């Protein structure tokens, strides 16, 4: 049965969750940022932002995590498995684009063999999404086949129907059992449930045209031209909810150590550099091409999903204002032009 949740019951929901041992994460103001972070009560939750500055991925694939710990003594090594990384939690108020990134990333983290750090956190965390009631010029979810109220990836979806009331839709069994567990917090169906307040996100390009063009244009001047202003940092990849590349390093003292999995990014020149100094992607143009190709061609061919959810974070944070949807618009234009030539 359809339910609704009043804003004044948010606090009750959060407190009840915490009472049952769930950790609760929600968008929270932190100076100039709004970040998904742990909250104790609803008073800490921000609701008037477009999108959080951090993406949801860090709850499943943190910026740094130990995959092993070990002791070393003379020539002996003793390995210890990290424990307690998957904690029962609810992420409340994430955006549909962020939620959708999870099933997309499931594919790579389960490809052939499963990364337990990702998988066990996925099992432990329930996602309660709030559909976007506003957007900004960086948003382009509708261009990559999503919507500001898309359900995929969420366990529960809340959509605003009046200034303080949200209609509640359960998307997965996990979501349903969560709602059941905390049934008392929710109200019955709301009379105004048809009046959903959902943002209108402008469609910026035809995604269907992108891949065919990428198939043909591994070598093209646009890669270098567009990336001239790129400074080669990792901001875009680190804020991206679907960028999953990582590095594995050891950190140690004389007797103990950790093997650590850290975020890494394809825009760094060191990312692919061989020990010999040879670098398969030695220029920024090649690295930028890799980012676009990976998202809109390679991942599609491998996993039948676009590795982009249109959140626009990379464009927002880019130090040099490189805008990914603009890049895709350029590709679309190029594609149309070459069609016309034929």
């Amino acid at each position, binding site marked *: 049965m359809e339910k609704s949740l009043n804003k004044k019951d948010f606090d009750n929901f959060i407190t009840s969750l915490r009472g049952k041992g769930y950790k609760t994460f929600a968008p929270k103001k932190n100076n100039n940022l709004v970040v998904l972070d742990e909250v104790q009560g609803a008073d800490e939750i921000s609701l008037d932002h477009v999108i959080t500055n951090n993406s949801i991925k860090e709850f499943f694939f943190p910026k740094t995590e130990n*995959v*092993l710990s*070990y002791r*070393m003594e003379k*020539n*002996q*090594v003793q*390995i210890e*498995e990290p424990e307690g990384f998957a904690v029962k939690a609810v992420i409340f108020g994430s955006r549909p684009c962020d939620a959708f990134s999870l099933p997309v990333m499931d594919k*790579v*983290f389960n*490809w*052939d*063999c*499963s*990364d*337990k750090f990702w*998988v*066990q956190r996925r099992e432990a965390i329930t996602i309660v999404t709030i559909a976007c009631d506003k957007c900004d010029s960086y948003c382009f979810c509708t261009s990559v086949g999503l919507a500001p109220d898309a359900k995929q990836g969420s366990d529960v979806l809340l959509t605003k129907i009046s200034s303080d009331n949200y209609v509640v839709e359960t998307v997965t069994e996990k979501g349903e059992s969560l709602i059941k567990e905390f049934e008392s917090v929710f109200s019955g169906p709301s009379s105004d449930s048809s009046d959903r307040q959902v943002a209108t996100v402008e469609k910026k390009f035809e995604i269907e045209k992108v891949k065919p063009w990428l198939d043909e244009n*591994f*070598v093209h001047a646009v890669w270098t031209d567009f990336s001239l202003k790129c400074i080669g940092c990792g901001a875009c990849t680190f804020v991206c909810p679907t960028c*999953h*590349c*990582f*590095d*594995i*390093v*050891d950190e*140690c003292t004389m007797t103990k*150590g950790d*093997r650590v*999995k850290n975020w*890494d990014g*394809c825009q760094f020149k060191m*990312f*692919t*550099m*061989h*020990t*010999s100094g*040879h670098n*398969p*992607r030695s220029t920024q143009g*090649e690295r930028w091409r*890799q980012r676009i*190709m*990976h998202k809109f*061609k*390679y991942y599609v*061919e*491998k996993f039948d999903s676009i590795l982009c959810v249109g959140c626009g974070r990379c464009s927002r944070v880019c130090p040099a204002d490189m805008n990914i949807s603009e890049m895709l618009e350029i590709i679309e234009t190029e594609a149309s032009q070459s069609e016309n030539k034929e």
Partner: protein
Amino acid sequence: MDNIYRPYLMNISDMVEEAPGVRTYRLNFLNEDEGKKFQFRAGQFALYSVFGYGECTFCIASSPTRMDYIECTFRQAGRVTNALRELNVGDTLGFRGPYGNVFPIDEWEGKNLVFIAGGIALPPLRSVIWNCLDLRDKFKDVTIIYGAKTVADLVYKHELKEWDARDDVNLVTTVDPGGETPDWPGKVGFVPTVVEQAEPSSNNTIAVVCGPPIMIKFTLPVLEKLGFKQDRVYTTLENRMKCGLGKCGRCNIGCTYVCKEGPVFTAQEINKMPDEF
């Protein structure tokens, strides 16, 4: 659920200094049960770790026909290989693998084999060479063409002697001009040239090439001239890798993940790849 990043612990039971900066370790599983269950095939690679320093990637250099141990040969180059070189017999290292695809040896039965390697690229071929030699009667002629910069840089010197002494192996060794010693019995010249001179027949023959990019670049046209079809020429690639499992996202050449779809490719497959290696 298993931790895919957890390595087996291996004991270094033996080591050989192959060439300046190049060393071979023989490894045994510390946990015998793990060793019994472990299987791999020629062409596969693994991640070797020195605890405290990290992991690095190279091929398994021993043959799957000799499963009592695993051998790896590496050249000291970066942080991990430098640390690896500091180890000694009796020390423990980590081993994660096997990963990647294999040389389709079964398909090669009844054919002639030509192995062409340059410098430190013999170790990846050593696994498949011994694999084939251990099943010697399944193949026809076996030719090994191996070159290095100098005589000192030739790896597996004792095995080169062994191969040279065998009647059923045709071994051609060469060193780059200037790298020869007064008593050097082999050829002097770059690998592509030596291949051209050796003129292995392409008739019913499989060629396996491995070496630095520049060597491969000049050897492939020679093989083509000798009449080798692209799908009869195999090579094994190498890229920077961190996971070996198709997740860390750096070893791809275009759409192809070297760690999963490779490292073994035919020349035909390589020619289809974008120019990104």
